[in-house]
């Protein structure tokens, strides 16, 4: 790694003294510095991912004996071991994550869309108050919510159930915020007014006219919520005790906890981490062209 990084870093460090010596070298260097800086950033960000891809191919012995970035020969065996571990509980975790994130994000997007639309389109008493109170939810540290959420759900016998992980994650203040910004930009007031003139009910205007216009933004909101729920650790950590219901994050954590003193389990943890990263990376690559980057910062151009 260092042999790759050092010579490349040199032009960055050496550019300052020569920067004002003349125009042609300046222009060349300026194009080079950003490219090299970004490449170094990319190497840094891809390094652990590259490591886990390679480490997952190593058998238990190879992991400790061969150079880190040299592929091994044990992937098929690791995959079989992981699938066989406790009757395939790993795949149950993957399925649970898909369920929590898929269904959770879908419901969450619906709630965000309708709330954001209402906040953007109507002028009504308490609009800003409702919006600010919802948004303050972002500031609440998750533990502050999760501990009493656990105790309250325990009162109604819902802890250690799928619902205990699903229900608290449906309302995402950030999703409401994004949906409001998007609805304000994408749904023109005269279109809503025209719908009213034609005698359509408010619900019909929302579902038939506004919602289709909001779809591109809602795809982004869905992806945000999906990633947020998929990556969540604390809530299932607090709510669940039955490992058949664990999402992948919690499953890998318990595997690591058990494996910390048993190097034999390292290969399982590594292979498990590699396979857990795959779906999100794949999702990421597929959707990045649809991913409305403008919406990320809330800056929608009209």
């Amino acid at each position, binding site marked *: 790694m260092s042999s790759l990084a050092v010579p490349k870093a040199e032009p960055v460090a050496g550019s300052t003294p020569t920067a004002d010596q003349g125009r042609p070298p300046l222009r060349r260097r300026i194009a080079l510095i950003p490219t090299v800086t970004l490449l170094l950033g990319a190497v840094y960000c891809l390094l*652990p991912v590259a490591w886990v891809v390679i480490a997952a191919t190593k058998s238990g012995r190879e992991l400790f004996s061969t150079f880190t970035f040299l592929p091994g020969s044990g992937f098929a065996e690791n995959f079989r071991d992981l699938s066989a571990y406790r009757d395939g509980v790993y795949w149950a975790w993957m399925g649970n994550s898909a369920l929590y994130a898929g269904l959770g994000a879908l419901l969450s997007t619906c709630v965000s869309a*309708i709330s954001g639309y209402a906040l953007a389109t109507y002028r009504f008493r308490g609009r800003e108050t409702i919006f600010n109170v919802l948004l303050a939810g972002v500031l609440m540290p998750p533990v*502050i919510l999760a*501990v*009493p959420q656990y105790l309250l759900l325990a009162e109604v016998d819902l802890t250690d159930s799928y619902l205990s992980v699903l229900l608290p994650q449906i309302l995402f203040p950030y999703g409401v915020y994004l949906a409001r910004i998007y609805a304000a930009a994408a749904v023109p007031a005269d279109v809503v007014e025209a719908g009213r003139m034609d005698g359509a009910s408010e619900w019909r205007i929302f579902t038939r006219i506004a919602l289709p216009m909001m779809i591109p933004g809602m795809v982004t909101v869905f992806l945000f919520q999906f990633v947020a729920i998929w990556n969540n*650790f604390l809530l299932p950590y607090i709510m669940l005790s039955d490992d058949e219901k664990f999402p992948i994050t919690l499953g890998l954590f318990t595997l690591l906890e058990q494996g910390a003193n048993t190097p034999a389990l390292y290969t399982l943890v590594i292979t498990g981490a590699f396979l857990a990263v795959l779906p999100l990376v794949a999702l990421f690559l597929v959707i990045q062209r649809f991913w409305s980057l403008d919406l990320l910062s809330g800056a929608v151009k009209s």
Partner: protein
Amino acid sequence: MKSTARRQAYGVKGAPYAFLLPATILFALFFALPIGYAIWLSFHKVKVSGLGLGSGARKEVWAGLENYTDALTDSELLHGTLRVLGYGCVVVPVMLGLALLFALMLDSEKVRLAPFTRLAIFLPYAIPGVVAALLWGFLYLPDVSPFYFVLDKLGMPQPDLLDGGPLYLALSNIAVWGGTGFNMIVIYTSLQAIPAEVYEAAKLDGATPTQIALRIKIPMVAPSLVLTFFFSIIATLQVFNEPTTLKPLTNSVSTTWSPLMKVYRDAFGEGDIHSAAAQAVIIAFATLLLSFGFLRAANRRQKQEATR
């Protein structure tokens, strides 16, 4: 549900409230109620009478500020807070500095490979914090780490990355790795929104790309910098996943490493939900105070800039 007469009477007026009903109900059940319950718990304690057996033996009684004074004088909580503050002093400037640097580089003219590098730097956002901590945890382990391999070959000393001072850097690195890309995209997006004429004018005046970056671009993206700074601070104060995940790999991460880890330990490890609730309320209050103070300061500055 609603009768025709009612709908006519309210007409459009009732619609926004009906549309906001699901969010309001969810907010009441999963945000307001838990917060209220936490506050209630924080002012109570369990009083055990006799041997603590039987149904009436354990009673929740009013504790006043007892849980709060206990929490505020708790040295473990204080140390956790100091640890997280130290950690934040590394994470926030490094992460936002890198995010701004990469965003400016992406926005510069004639840069090559921009789409690839942008995606690569944003990629860690998609990786769960637990998995990120797990990956880096293995990269920090001497037995499997490429860093140690290289240091060994070079005959250099091998620091223990999972202990003492280096542990802070090791944990900070995980947060920087995970958060830089997201912040970079936020800043980059607002850079893209600056109209091209601004640059044209600056170029005609003879400004160099560096001058344009420092004097035009950075001031113009100041609002996004404020936003990213704000969210980074909040996220940093709430660190939980990464140290919890690294815990099995080292003895140096205690169960009370960060304030939230202590809240978790007290509530579920020790079963003392009342004092855990008091600590949680203090942390939430401190976060809110910090947020409002910060937003206020940011607003005031923006107003000053505008009137200048």
